[in-house]
């Protein structure tokens, strides 16, 4: 038994370190395990890949990705940026605040941090440079603000967590609203201090009422989307998957007929790209499904659970351990894979300690999303770095203050369940 577990760990580490894509690294590890064990037929691999993806709720993932991509192609990013700059552009370090606020609005349209960083970065990083900001600073703000994307609903990691932990997608969506705003406020505070110290940016006058009205009418189209999604789910009009599909329909109508910014012949390329991104996410889910079957047969979840509960029965200490553990995990493992592999292990322990499922879920997701701006596998850093064309090591250094404030926000949310539970409780989620 011991040697099997060792083979499992070694294969996983070796394939991951040598750069095998996470999905196939999970499948290869499972293959090696099954070959050594010998008693389980190998058709378990294709079978578990299939059953890992064959689910109607999972379909929210391709639709949310597609809706976000369509909205971006329709040019709503500029409208969001304009609205955000009317709101906060006059504050010291204006464009940095615009970046954060636009990220929060964009979070309501797209469910993925990487998409946020790419869309907003391509507009705001050049604009910030022109306005007298350090380019590396601009890239670090963009990467840090994109972390809010999957915390404020809709969110792909939330969908996947809710499915693998069998809790309500709508409830967990709502649990992310206040933590997302809290991170946003924290990032704005840091930006303010840094902008003052380095004298970044020019002074911008407060927007006039007319400018406010014009930008608001422009931004109504994208701001309406989260209302459709959340209103539809909470009002019981449709399931999360159907809501994501309606969001796609809304984006198509907006792009093709209202704003007329998407041409019919652009559609196949947008759909194709979104589906390739979907494939990379769902293939991780499918392959992790083989892996989690193996973890189950080895009774690893029970072993970890027993070890954890023998170490501490105090929920506060447990949450601290979870935070420290997941911050490290988030550095090395991509978020989706981490969610699918780790949640089945941690959720029963959290439940036994009496921690609210919604609260625990949001804490886990915040942890793993902070991993988007921690090296070595900080996907938002990669995106911001290639958009801004800055030095990666300097970008990592420039991100530290933002990383710190996000970790502080994580601990505030962890120990004050008010932030996660207040809004869901209003809507009757426990």
């Amino acid at each position, binding site marked *: 038994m011991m040697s099997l577990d060792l083979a499992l760990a070694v294969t996983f580490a070796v394939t*991951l*370190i*040598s*750069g*095998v*894509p*996470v*999905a*196939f*690294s999970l*499948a*290869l590890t499972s*293959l090696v395990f099954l070959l050594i064990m010998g008693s389980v*037929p*190998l*058709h378990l*691999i*294709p*079978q578990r890949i*299939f059953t890992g*993806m*064959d689910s*109607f709720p*999972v*379909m929210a993932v*391709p*639709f949310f990705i*597609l809706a976000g991509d369509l909205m971006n192609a329709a040019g709503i990013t500029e409208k969001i940026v304009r609205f955000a700059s009317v709101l906060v552009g006059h504050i010291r370090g204006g464009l940095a605040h615009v970046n954060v606020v636009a990220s929060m609005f964009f979070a309501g349209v797209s469910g993925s941090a990487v998409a946020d960083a790419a869309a907003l970065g391509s507009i705001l990083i050049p604009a910030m440079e022109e306005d007298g900001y350090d380019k590396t600073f601009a890239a670090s703000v963009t990467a840090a603000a994109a972390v809010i994307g999957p915390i404020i609903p809709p969110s792909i990691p939330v969908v996947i967590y809710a499915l693998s932990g069998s809790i309500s997608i709508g409830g967990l969506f709502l649990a992310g609203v206040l933590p997302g705003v809290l991170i946003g406020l924290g990032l704005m505070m840091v930006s303010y201090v840094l902008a003052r110290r380095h004298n970044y940016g020019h002074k911008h006058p407060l927007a006039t009422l007319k400018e406010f009205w014009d930008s608001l009418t422009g931004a109504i189209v994208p701001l309406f989307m989260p209302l459709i999604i959340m209103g539809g789910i909470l009002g019981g009009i*449709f399931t999360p998957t*159907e809501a994501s*599909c*309606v969001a*796609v*329909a809304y984006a198509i109508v907006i792009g093709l007929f209202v704003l007329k910014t998407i041409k019919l012949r652009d*559609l*196949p390329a947008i*759909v*194709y790209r979104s*589906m*390739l*991104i*979907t*494939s*990379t996410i*769902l*293939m*991780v889910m*499918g392959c992790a499904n083989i892996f989690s079957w193996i973890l189950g047969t080895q009774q690893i979840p029970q072993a970890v659970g027993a070890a954890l509960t023998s170490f501490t029965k105090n929920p506060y200490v447990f949450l601290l351990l979870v935070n420290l553990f997941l911050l490290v995990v988030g550095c*090395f493992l991509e978020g989706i894979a981490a969610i699918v592999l780790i949640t089945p292990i941690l959720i029963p322990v959290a439940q036994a300690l009496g921690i609210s499922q919604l609260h625990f879920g949001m804490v886990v997701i915040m942890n793993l999303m902070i991993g988007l701006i921690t*090296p*070595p*596998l900080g*996907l938002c850093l*990669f995106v911001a*770095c*290639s958009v801004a064309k800055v*030095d*990666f*090591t300097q970008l*990592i250094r420039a991100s530290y203050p933002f990383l710190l404030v996000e970790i502080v926000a994580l601990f505030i949310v962890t120990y004050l369940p008010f932030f996660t539970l207040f809004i869901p409780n209003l809507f009757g989620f426990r």
Partner: protein
Amino acid sequence: MQTQSHALRSLDKGLRYLDKIMFWAIFILAAIMFLMVFLQVIMRYSFITDPFSFSEELARYLMVWIVCIGSAGAYSQGMHIGVNLFTGLLPAAGQIWVARLVHMAVGGLMGVIIFEGGRLSYFLANQFSPAMEIKMTWPYLAVPVGAFLILIQAAALLIKGFAGAEKPLNPQENKGRCSP
């Protein structure tokens, strides 16, 4: 030398042709998947109740096909997420060799999935899906077909690599100086 570059050109031509097929296949499957779910929502609030009992099931199977084909497209473009911090520390020649080993390992894995997945699909011919009552062979076939397409892409990257047209494993992370 002449024959080698000729072979490479026809390989490229074949791959472009395959890309085009995958592109349109994914677009059409995704369009049907979208229409199925969208009509399901619309119809629920109209007078016709339960018009397509099969819409949800069809959409699900289409999604599996999209993901399996799409994984191959994503593989050829280096879109799958992996860790390249450690390989990035190696000298250039080492990186190329590790990339080759990775393609070989993925290719081997796909070989197993093609064989086992093909056998599984074959044995599922006597099981039928609950709503559409089609043979379960068809949805399950997506997995070995997708594995076959990934195998082609991995082999093509390997061949191109040995012919000297080496590509980094994860280009999205290597743009500029963005890999650590």
